[in-house]
């Protein structure tokens, strides 16, 4: 996902909010009778989602000479895994590893930097903390693409060209505004009384950060983790411009390069697309609830 996000004012007050949240067991009124219109609509969308995915998998299992000019909707007559083999032997695991490194580094940088900032933005009332917060607020809608030329100049001058660091640092920077918004949003829900209670115990700001702020903003933190990991996962332009060799090539760029490498081999290209989806699909299967919950958080639960 590569969008930014903004919080909206919560429509419901804290007191009301306690009741409907969570998977309630109350059966909804509309479950009582079937809804034919909704049934048809969802079936149509199911087709829209499934047909491309099915075709992709089917073509990726077809040998190249058979794929040409065949009806793509027919199942492959004799499926082959050759295309997957081709992709796996063309650097795919290495590209995947790079993407994982980038994602982990981006998430770490964003958390380490944004947590204290959001803490300050919510709790401190000086002119400076306010200005800092506003700086990030302004950055929300600015697309990272806009600064790729000057960033390239900086990265070349800093001698970082063609390294993963060149991808990580700007990606993290552009994931920060939204992360700050999400974190400040959750931080505000910690009540004054809790801070005061800890203060009575003589806790320092640092201890409060670790013992109160972080535990209480778990939801926001997991949203930020998912959000910034998705930024890294989808990142395309920065790696395209800031890296060149095989070494620091990330998955998106690897896929893009397969177009020219497998230019005449659509089945292998689609096999690489399928493979790129498998790792995150696995994450999805294992942690569906956390992922979905975190994403709902991006939208402001």
């Amino acid at each position, binding site marked *: 996902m590569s969008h930014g996000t903004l919080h909206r004012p919560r429509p419901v007050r804290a007191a009301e909010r306690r009741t409907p949240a969570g998977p309630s067991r109350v059966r909804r009124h509309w479950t009582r009778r079937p809804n034919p219109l909704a049934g048809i609509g969802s079936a149509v969308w199911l087709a829209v989602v499934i047909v491309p995915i099915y075709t992709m998998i089917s073509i990726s299992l077809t040998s190249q000479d058979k794929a*040409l000019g065949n009806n793509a909707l027919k199942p492959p007559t004799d499926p082959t895994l050759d295309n997957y083999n081709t992709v796996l032997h063309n650097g795919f695991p290495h590209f995947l590893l790079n993407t994982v490194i980038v994602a982990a580094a981006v998430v770490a940088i964003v958390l380490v930097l944004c947590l204290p900032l959001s803490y300050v933005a919510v709790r401190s009332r000086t002119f400076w903390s306010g200005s800092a917060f506003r700086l990030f607020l302004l950055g929300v809608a600015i697309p990272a693409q806009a600064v790729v030329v000057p960033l390239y100049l900086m990265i070349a001058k800093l001698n970082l060209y063609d390294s993963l660091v060149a991808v990580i640092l700007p990606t993290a920077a552009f994931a920060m505004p939204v992360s700050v918004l999400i974190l400040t949003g959750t931080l505000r829900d910690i009540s004054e009384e809790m801070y005061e209670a800890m203060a009575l115990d003589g806790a320092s700001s640092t201890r409060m950060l670790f013992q109160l702020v972080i535990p209480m903003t778990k939801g926001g933190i997991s949203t930020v983790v998912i959000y910034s990991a998705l930024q890294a996962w989808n990142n395309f332009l920065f790696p395209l411009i800031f890296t060149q060799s095989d070494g620091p090539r990330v998955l998106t760029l690897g896929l893009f390069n397969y177009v020219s490498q497998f230019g005449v081999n659509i089945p292998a290209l689609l096999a690489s697309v399928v493979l790129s989806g498998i790792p995150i699909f696995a994450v999805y299967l294992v942690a569906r609830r956390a992922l979905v919950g975190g994403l709902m958080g991006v939208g402001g639960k």
Partner: protein
Amino acid sequence: MESYSRRWFLGAGATTLVSAAGLTACGSGSGSGGSGGTITAFVYGDDAVKVQAKAVSRFNASAAAKKAEGKVKLEKVPGSDYPAKLRTAMGSPNAPDVFFNWGGGSIKAYKEAGQLVDLTDTIKSDPVLKDGFLPSVLAAGALGGRNYGIPMRGMQPVILFYNKTLFAEHKLQPPTTWDHLLDINAKLKKANITPFALGGADIWPELMWLEYLVDRIGGPEVFDKIKNGDSSGWGDPAVLKAAETVKQLIDDGAFGKGFSSVAYTNGGAPAVFAKGKAAMHLMGSWEYSTQLGKFPDFAKKDLGWCAFPKYEGGAGDIRNVVGNPTNYWSVNARTSNKDAALAFLRDCASESYARDLVANGDIPTTSNAAKLLDASPNPGFAKFQYQMVQQAPAFTLSWDQAVDPSSSTPMLTEINKLFVGKSTPARFVAALKELK
């Protein structure tokens, strides 16, 4: 895959980041001079790269490499964005020492920035290089009479391919004149066959039509003038006439209806041609190896080739050729080991290098190529191609490589607009005249 050094993760200057937060130039990673060290060579990463890979291992094991105290590391840059990658790398501290290019406009900016080694004197004083290549090919890559490149791949003239079996079925002869071609088109369309395959999703196959038509109608001088930086050359009546001729072909359905969604690079256009849906295909000489790889039966039995037809009343010779004379290696002026770079380039003139090219189905541009062609996978096609280039009064470099990149992108856009009907021949000419 080869093993990766750690620098790809940290970047050459992770330390620089800490010490220099400013934008002061951190200097180039490589100093000039002739000290030893490994040099990097950027090459366009397609199938033909195996020839360069062999050359690199041969060189690295050679006495010449020992003498220059240097080895070559080959960096295969994925094709589609090679020019942009080269540009960004050349502007960074880790620029390649030696790099693949198309000569002409593709290296003009590097020359102007003082980033190229002038090879003119090196070639003159070295009989291996001086006599090793066809003079016309060496000259085609030159800028202002100075040489900056050594030919390193096969020649790639644009050829009119046709389906022999289809032609025989409909009692047709390959076209020699434009009217003849129109006549063939009419007959093919009656038989429900698209006359020409065209991969319009990549714009360069469309460009080939204009290149040949402008040559046949106005002669090679028309584009020569443009190439030398005079954009008023686009105002030549031959350009307008060529655009109108193309427009008629399109309106006439000579390329079928969906050509804008068909690409050459993903195999669409070659498939349309090989499956007999289209009878002819104007394409670079690599079409033969593409077909041989994808549809071997078609390549061996049905594939025929001929020169682009003559245009009645036109100024251009039917023997004139357009396309890429070849590709070149150029040397970065900031290389850390110029001796090794030059020694490596000499290998391109060797017979083993030429043999590798021939075995790959390419036609080397070396003077010794003629006698090697019998070893080619298809000697008949190889000889046709070699003679075509050898006898050509003029070899026009592909327009998109010949002009500066700043005008080649808008030029390709205008060509695409003409083909998809977003522009008219008159507007096309007007827009091109605006290019600087």
